[in-house]
Each structure stands twice: as structure tokens, then as C-alpha cells.
């Protein structure tokens, strides 16, 4: 059993609580024990708050890292944004003694110190590095045979690759290995590394946001035969789930056969024998007739 301090972040507890619940329930079954922590704050996010004030962003992230250091535990998260903020901050502060001193000068005001002694991993990295795909495969209770999955690892799990060291950002394969270990078939597609475009949504450019979402979904629909899209990022999830409804107003061809979006933990849940109800499929915006699941 490998043990981690669970960094839930904000989006999963507030928007996708079923994913949080499922992670707590099923990750121990594949050998990942999670310890909850009440003193963590927002990571903060690497798109808006990193831009708003870089030092605030660094110091708040370092505060979260310092909490894990006090417990002597590495951090695991289910969110690409949290991973990116915490792992990049960790790398920046480990690299620069000057920056580390400046941040610690701030943290001492709240009685904390960043030392640089813990690691930060996304669930997908824990599965790759600690659990192993062969081992994962041996724990699967209901292999997802016949299910074709278009994976979308998401930009913030891939870049900066010299820090995250998860996969080749130009031709990612690791998420597909996870999909295969669960018994499903990973399909390749040309827009796999395209960004979900979340900032287009944040600034309210509906036309561009719909185009961005439709580009990927139509590529998957027209060229892969995939039954679902799967991702391990709550922002990408929301873009392709909720965003699919918005995008289908500008791209009516999306209405014909909607593509369900299944979170990494949910896909794992299905392979561990949970039903669609149990993984929280009801809470999704895109939940077409479950014809696709009949293949399993």
C-alpha cells in the first residue's frame, strides 16, 4: 500500500464530489491509501491566479507544500491544475535558493517553512510510477472489454515535461496504457494534445470556446469510433461535458451522437465493478442512452 496526503483542490469537491467520493472508496483497492487534510487551501490555479500575482501564487502553493512536509507525506491530487501549481512551485523553489528564501520570508509570518522535501503527483503518475500498469491490470474486477476510449490527458499533466516527467507532450501514450490496463481499447486521434481551451470560457468568448470544444469532439466522433472521451482534469472534464451542450448549439452535428466524458477515477471505478450509478454518471451533463456500455 502506497500512502499519500490527498490534495483535493477546489473544483473536485465543489463541482465533481462524486469523483472525490469514488477516489476515497476505490483507490485503496488498487493499493493507494489517502489521508485527508483540512488545512490545505486552493492550490492556487495556474491560469488566473498565477497571472494575478506570481509571488502570492508561489507563497500559497509553498504553504500547501509546507503542510505536507510537516506531516512527512507526499501529495497526490486528482486535478491537473493543482498538480501543475504544486509541482512547478516545488521545482522553482528547489532550483532557486533566492526564491526559496523570499517565499520563506513570507511563510514565517504564518509560522511555516518550505523545505523542499515532498513530492507531488497526479493520480495518473502514481498509477504509472508506484502501482504499475501490469499490477493495475491484475486488480481489475470487470475489464472494460470492447469499450473504445479517446484519452485527453490535458496540457497541465504534460507540460512542463522537464518538471512533471509524466509523458511525451507531443505524443502522449501513458494515459492510453492506463486505459488498456483496465481492459478498454485506447484510440489514437490527431487532436489528442489539443488544449481544452478553458481560458476561452473564462474570458467569455463563447464562439471560440464552442469551436475549440467541437474541434476535438468532432475529430473523435468522425475518425475514431470511440465510445467515450476520458480525462483526469476537472477543467477539461467540464469543458467537454457541460461545454458539449453549449458547443452543440453552434455545431448541430454534435447533437446526433453525444460523446460521454468519463473521469479517470470513474473509468477505474467501472473497471473495479462499480455501476454507472455508483460512479455518479447521473451527475454528468452528457449522459446519452447507454448503448455504448452494452459493448462491455
Amino acid at each position, binding site marked *: 500500500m502506497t500512502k499519500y496526503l490527498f490534495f483535493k483542490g477546489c473544483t473536485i469537491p465543489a463541482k465533481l*464530489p462524486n469523483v472525490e467520493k469514488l477516489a476515497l472508496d476505490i483507490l485503496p483497492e488498487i493499493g493507494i491509501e489517502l489521508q485527508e487534510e483540512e488545512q*490545505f*487551501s486552493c492550490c492556487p490555479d495556474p491560469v488566473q491566479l498565477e497571472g494575478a500575482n506570481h509571488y502570492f501564487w508561489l507563497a500559497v502553493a509553498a504553504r500547501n507544500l509546507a503542510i505536507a512536509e510537516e506531516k512527512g507525506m507526499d501529495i497526490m491530487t486528482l486535478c491537473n491544475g493543482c498538480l501543475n501549481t504544486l509541482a512547478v512551485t516545488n521545482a522553482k523553489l528547489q532550483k532557486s535558493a533566492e526564491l526559496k528564501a523570499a517565499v520563506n520570508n513570507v511563510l514565517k509570518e504564518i509560522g511555516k517553512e518550505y523545505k523542499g522535501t515532498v513530492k507531488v503527483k497526479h493520480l495518473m503518475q502514481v498509477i504509472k510510477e508506484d502501482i504499475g500498469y501490469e499490477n493495475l491490470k491484475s486488480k481489475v474486477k470487470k475489464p472494460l472489454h470492447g469499450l473504445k476510449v479517446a484519452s485527453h490527458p490535458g496540457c497541465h499533466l504534460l507540460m512542463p515535461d522537464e518538471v512533471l516527467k509524466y509523458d511525451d507532450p507531443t505524443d502522449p501514450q501513458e494515459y492510453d496504457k492506463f486505459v488498456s490496463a483496465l481492459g478498454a481499447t485506447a484510440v489514437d486521434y490527431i487532436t489528442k494534445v489539443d*488544449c481544452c481551451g478553458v481560458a476561452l470560457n473564462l474570458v467569455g468568448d463563447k464562439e471560440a470556446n464552442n469551436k475549440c470544444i467541437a474541434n476535438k469532439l468532432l475529430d473523435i466522433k468522425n475518425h475514431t469510433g470511440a465510445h467515450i472521451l476520458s480525462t483526469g482534469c476537472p477543467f477539461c472534464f467540464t469543458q467537454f461535458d457541460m461545454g458539449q451542450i453549449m458547443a452543440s448549439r453552434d455545431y448541430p452535428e454534435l447533437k446526433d451522437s453525444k460523446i460521454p466524458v468519463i473521469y479517470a477515477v470513474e473509468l477505474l471505478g467501472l473497471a473495479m465493478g462499480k455501476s454507472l450509478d455508483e460512479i455518479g454518471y447521473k451527475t454528468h451533463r452528457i449522459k446519452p442512452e447507454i448503448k455504448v456500455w452494452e459493448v462491455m
Partner: protein
Amino acid sequence: MEIIKIKYSKDNIIKQSEEVQRCFKCSACSIFCPVTLNVSRYTLEDAFISQLYGAEESKTLKDVWMCCNCEKCIMSCPQDGEPAEVFTNLKQLSYQRGLAPDSVYALAKQVLNTGIAYETGAKVNADRKKMGLKELSANENVSKELRIIAERTAFKTEVA
């Protein structure tokens, strides 16, 4: 390797950036850029990144928030430029001048007041309760510490 430089004359902030001067508008950065690919006023010939490098300051500081920080540009720049890093710095200036979207100032307030990025309404907690999860609520100790950090890093939620 010798770095080829071109001058971007309009924008004073941009002119000072060493990173920006490396850009020779080859558009390699924009082949995967979600902004260039999806926002109609940008094209590969006249991409988001090079347009912002050459735009008037006020336009640059307003549009920079479309950047998703996905780092596709860093991945593909043949000059080892780091547009996403440049944009993160520009966002900071934009924020200080009050040119960021309202949602960014609202997010900053929310995080400083509660420690988390979303309102913790009754609906969320009803769903969480049904699932047997703990209630999501503001943590006064956490937000107090965050406000001290904000003070020490001169992070404000409003523009004076």
C-alpha cells in the same frame, strides 16, 4: 546558437522583454495554440502570440487572459522563447491596472475570504451530504493565513 531578434516597437512593456525579442514570427508556437486556432480574428499568418507582441499596450493587457497557459508555445518555439511565461508576467501587470476580467478579481476575493475558489452553497453541500462527504465550508484559519500572505506579497483584490 545565435538568436535572431526583431524589434516590436509599439508596446513598451513588450519591448523590454528579452524573450519577446527572440520572436521572428514563424508561427510555430501557434500551430497548437488554442487561441489562434479558435478565435476568429487570429490566423496562423497573424497569430495570437505575435499580434499581442506587436499590439498597443491596452489591447495586449486585455487579451492576454485568453492564454490558457497550456505551454504548447513553449513546446514548439524554435528560438527557445517562452511566450506562456511572458504572458504570465503580462497578466500580472494587467491585473494591477484593473484590466483583468471581473471574474479574476472575484476569484481572488473568494480565495482570500474562504481559502477555496468556489462558493460553498447549500446545493453543493446537500450533494456532498448525500454521498457521505464532509461539508465544504470556509476555513477561517486557512483564509486568515492567506490574507497574511496576500499582505506580504502586495496582492490586492481590488484596484485602487
